[in-house]
């Protein structure tokens, strides 16, 4: 197990290194510089500005310096906000993003599991079809369409919530719902299929023969075994969530990482774009690693060994 973890971490570092390098060289290929066209600067002043950002050095020198700084957690200085280090900007914005994502995952999986269970218990009944329809809608309709719908109904028409504001817990309700519908649908679909499969297995028939009630069978025997594979869909689910959070943050004006990325793209703030990309990449890879390890820990049938994958 320890060897497996170590190997995965080494892989993770290599992937991150590749992403960091690719990001750096792609950014070098881009047109544009920290100098804005409207700043009327003399040639010497321009040189001074470029010098201060270290943009006059040859690209390999810049690359090595960039990687060195990265190890120290220094992501460079933003072109846009007067000389603020990118890491400072992003740290401030990490909180709202993580809060939103975490709540959305919790709310989504919780209601998804309930919906899936209901569907499985009333297999082929009215509730099964209802929850299947909800699941199809939830997986198909993009989260930003949901966000628009919620915003229009609850903020514009009914006026229960502010349209786009961040700070109080009340402001988080609409974004969380909009973001949680995707994970909810995925979880509901998955739990339903798993439960129906588990229902036909021998140990459930044994439990029935013992005289356990339907509810007891579902709860004590079926549910737990159906939940283990749910961890496998958590990975793709989290990645979808991060994609979704980018638009949700834009729509609800949440001061998070995604919103920062969208703004930075508009103003060509390359260091911030690079920093955000790296944080996203790091988040993705870390989540996948944690889920992989979690899967090995939860299910004793899966022996994670060095040659396993």
């Amino acid at each position, binding site marked *: 197990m320890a060897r497996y973890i170590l190997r995965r971490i080494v892989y993770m570092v290599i992937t991150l290194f590749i992403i960091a390098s690719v990001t750096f060289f792609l950014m070098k290929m881009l047109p544009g510089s920290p100098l804005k066209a409207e700043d009327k600067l003399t040639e010497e002043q321009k040189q001074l500005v470029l010098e201060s950002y270290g943009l006059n050095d040859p690209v390999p020198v810049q690359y090595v310096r960039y990687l060195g700084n990265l190890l120290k957690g220094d992501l460079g200085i933003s072109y846009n906000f007067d000389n603020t280090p990118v890491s400072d900007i992003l740290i401030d914005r990490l909180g709202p993003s993580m809060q939103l994502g975490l709540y959305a995952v919790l709310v989504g999986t919780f209601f998804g599991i309930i919906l899936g269970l209901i569907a499985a218990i009333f297999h082929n009944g009215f509730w099964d079809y209802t929850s299947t329809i909800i699941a199809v809608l939830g997986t198909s309709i993009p989260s930003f369409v949901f966000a628009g719908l919620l915003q229009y109904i609850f903020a514009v028409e009914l006026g229960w919530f502010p349209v786009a504001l961040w700070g109080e817990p009340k402001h988080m309700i609409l974004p969380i719902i909009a973001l949680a519908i995707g994970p909810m649908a995925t979880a509901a679909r998955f739990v339903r299929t798993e439960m129906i499969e588990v229902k036909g297995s021998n140990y459930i028939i044994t439990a029935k023969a013992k005289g356990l009630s339907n509810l007891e069978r579902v709860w004590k025997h079926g549910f737990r075994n159906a939940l283990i594979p749910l961890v496998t869909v958590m990975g793709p689910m989290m990645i979808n969530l991060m994609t979704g959070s980018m638009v949700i943050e834009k729509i609800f004006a949440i001061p998070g990482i995604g919103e920062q990325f969208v703004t930075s*793209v508009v103003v060509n703030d390359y260091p911030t774009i690079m920093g955000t990309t790296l944080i996203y990449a790091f988040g993705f890879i870390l989540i996948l690693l944690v889920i992989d390890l979690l899967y090995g820990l939860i299910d004793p049938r899966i022996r994670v060994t060095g040659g396993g994958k």
Partner: protein
Amino acid sequence: MDQKNVNNLPKELFKPLVRKEDTSEKISRPSRTFGQNARRTLFKNIPAMISLVVLILIIIMSIIGPFMNKYGSNDQNLDHAKMPPRVPGLEKVSWLGFDGTLSDELTGATVEQATQKAYMRFNNEEDYIDIKVISDGDGSPNSAEIKATYHIYKAKGLEDTYYWLGTDQLGRDQWTRLWEGTRVSLIIAFVAALLDLVIGVAYGGISGYYGGRVDNVMQRIIEILSGIPSLVVILLMMLILKPGMTSIIIALVITGWTGMARIVRGEVLKLKSQEFVLAAKTLGTSDGKIIRKHLIPNISGIIIVNTMFTIPSAVFFEAFLSFIGLGIAPPKASLGSLIDIGFDNMQIYPYMLVFPAALLSIIMIAFNILGDGLRDAFDPKMHK
């Protein structure tokens, strides 16, 4: 006596036994090929068939829709900016929202105050604003409530003009833009899915069939590529490429083909040790022909199903990119960019958001249901 008779039965009583045909081994059901079975299962799946019809209609509309009225997708007319939807015939039915009016509920301390607010909201065109009092109010703030309906087509002297789905902030016809946007979105999705399919099948087929060192190297490449989150790659690609259809397709394909390649490789690995492949090899068939003629047809079901799920995810990613401002550049429209504009005008002109958002949702739902139906159709367990 009787006993004796049994032994001496007359010969005439004996009849030769007519042997009945043995039916136990007979196949009672008509013999169908796998493809026929799959088609039958699919045709019996009502939601999938409805989705298919809806998708075909949408595809047809995306081709002919823009030509159904006289407006071009980039005909700007600032005098006609932000006109609400108005459809001939349907305009009489006010609750449908196609009557060419803008309406809003406003509050004030008194009815007059609220009415003043309504006039200010709708360009002071007092003659063309209907005021309906909902509550008279008692003088306290926001106690009076009125519903103001602004007949904008009349106010602008455009009684004979019909914008079926209204116009956007530059006075461009939304109907035309909606279908042109759908066309752009669908072309991106289909081309991206097709390229994923071609690259993925070729790569996976070669990797799985040759195995050994070739497979090893090719799989390491895929592992590295899929270790990098696709969202990050797509965003970076969109930053360095010029915004437009080709860039979106490239960005989607760069990350998208690995999934298909993995699936095809796995299936080829399963199939290549089977007898029919050995037979083909013995007969001297070339490797390329074995892959094309023997292996690929046997895994076509999985390939089709996987492609069907690639299309909606490509539609989604295109909309997502255009929505965050990295996709289709104006003046071209796509569903994502229309939704983006719709969000900016949602509070007063909700129709600008409703139609593209609804169409995008319908496309996504239909593709997903059809994909589910195809998956069932190609699953031998589901054949009846």
